[in-house]
């Protein structure tokens, strides 16, 4: 076969290819490095006692049960508020809003919300919920701050899912005499459940990883709270991320920090996997 490509072109292509492999390689190595190092330093310190106790100065032991519980409370409280509101907003955007300009304004607002850095949410959450609503530094104030932060996610995923519900479903239901709300409740929402689930999973991921917004809203306390105490104003509590920050930056207890980091990594992995799984189910249904 005759050479058709000049040497210069060949070298250029080889160079670009090498750069591509190099970039992908670097990124994978960084990930493996981070995960490997954290698990290597963190896993040995995860003991049953570490997971099921609170820090005790007396015995000189650390435990992260309060932080695990606080993270769970934050997830629960946030979802309970944000789910109905976010799904409602998506329903309004997709089913009710007739004016295109109104839809555009709301979408612009959601985009703006999703772009605001978490430290600003922390500050505004402190101003609004901790001081203005006088909830005090508390899990409740933290959860309400997280509601604003996760609202765009829930709206977007639900809306995307609502869009895939065929218009014929709606027309069929309406033609049979159903009211609009009845139609939405019995036909549209059940068909869009997977988008809502995806939104929840993504929100949980966001909540688990959030720290800057919680530092001055949910506080830094390490006490074990019951579920009834957790929803009361004035009861502060640090999430896993905030605890990690405090252990690493303020107290220099790196072993504890790495142990928390490994738990966060595992959680991230699980959340990532379940998001992918639901996305796959969503796609399958879309094809049907």
């Amino acid at each position, binding site marked *: 076969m005759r050479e058709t*490509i000049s040497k210069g072109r060949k070298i*250029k292509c080889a160079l*670009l*290819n090498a*750069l*591509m492999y*190099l*970039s*992908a390689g*670097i*990124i*994978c190595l*960084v*990930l493996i490095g*981070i*995960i490997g*190092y*954290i698990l290597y330093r963190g896993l040995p310190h995860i003991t049953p006692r570490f997971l099921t106790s609170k820090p005790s100065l007396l015995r000189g032991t650390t435990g992260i049960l309060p932080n695990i519980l606080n993270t769970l409370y934050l997830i629960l409280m946030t979802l309970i508020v944000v789910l109905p509101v*976010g*799904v*409602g*907003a998506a*329903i*309004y955007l997709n*089913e*009710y809003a007739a004016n295109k300009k109104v839809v555009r304004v*709301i979408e*612009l*607002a*959601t985009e*703006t*919300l999703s*772009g*605001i*850095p*978490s*430290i*600003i949410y922390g*500050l*505004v959450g402190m*101003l*609004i919920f901790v001081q203005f609503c006088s909830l005090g530094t508390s899990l409740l104030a933290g959860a309400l701050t997280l509601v604003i932060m996760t*609202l*765009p996610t829930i709206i977007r995923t639900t809306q995307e899912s609502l869009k895939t519900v065929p218009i014929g479903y709606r027309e069929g239901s309406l033609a049979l005499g159903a*009211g609009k*709300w009845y139609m939405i409740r019995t036909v549209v929402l059940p068909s869009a459940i997977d988008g809502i689930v995806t939104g929840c999973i993504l929100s949980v991921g966001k909540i*688990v*990883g959030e720290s*800057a917004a919680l*530092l*001055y809203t949910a506080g830094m306390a390490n006490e074990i709270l019951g579920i009834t105490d957790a929803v009361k104003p004035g009861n502060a509590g640090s999430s896993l*991320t905030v605890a*990690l*920050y405090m252990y*690493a*930056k303020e107290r220099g207890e*790196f072993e504890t920090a*790495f142990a928390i*980091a490994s738990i*966060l990594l595992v959680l991230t992995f699980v959340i990532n996997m379940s998001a992918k799984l639901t996305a796959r189910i969503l796609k399958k249904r879309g094809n049907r």
Partner: protein
Amino acid sequence: MKKLKKAANFFEKLMNIIFTACGFLAVAFVIVITGFLVVKGAPAISKIGITDFLFGTKWESTASEASYGILPFILTSVYGTLGAVIIGVPLGLFCAIFVAKMAKPNLSRMVSGAVDLLSGIPSVVYGLVGMIIIVPFVRKAFNLPDGANLFSAIIVLTVMILPSVVSISETAIRAVPREYEEASLALGATKTETVFKVVVPAAKSGILTSVVLGIGRSIGEAMAVMMVAGNVANMPRLFKSVRFLTTAIASEMSYSSGLQREALFSIALVLFVFILIINLILNLVVKKDKN
């Protein structure tokens, strides 16, 4: 029968109102956030003087004669972001091209899975790794008294913006119609040439979007940067301890009072304006893309 219908009608109307309220909640949040930031942030700016505040090079909030100049923070945020973009965008773009066009399906899935995982890692975890690995490494490699400086922050920020750059560029590259490529290949260009001279230019605006999102993420990052940048209010130099706009807010919030505290809200207002400008650019880019 009539009564039933009336009740149903009322219920329909009620649901309509509830959904409309939910819909406008996001707008209300944006207005409330903006309102609070302006009301709390503006007084200090007018007290300090807008030029002294924005262009003052000294931040000494706890000194007896306090001075509140946030130019060091603004410049640090800009330089830090610029640095992360300069390193992260080429790296991310090459990776995105690799994943979208060059890699075999299995390898491609593996790399994009890695990128997804990277995007899910909490920022405090990045901060921890930066603190324990990068800071000592930078200190030793450049023979410095302290490794917590702008350079370490740039490295951490680079890793943190990579996922958004890669995944959005990848989507943009995949969306380029197959015919473009086929035409180029039929004319005798190699696969690599086709990708770089035809596909990437066609995906330009999507790639730009990814860069702007990366900038947004980098300028808003607080916790990771707080753990690696040293947190001293210096004018930015590559190997000096620095303070970003975000960390300036976070580091003094817990003990501040009076004008100092108000000035922190003013910093938040400045950061908010930055983010709004970035959002505006993003919208312009996306709109241009639609046309």
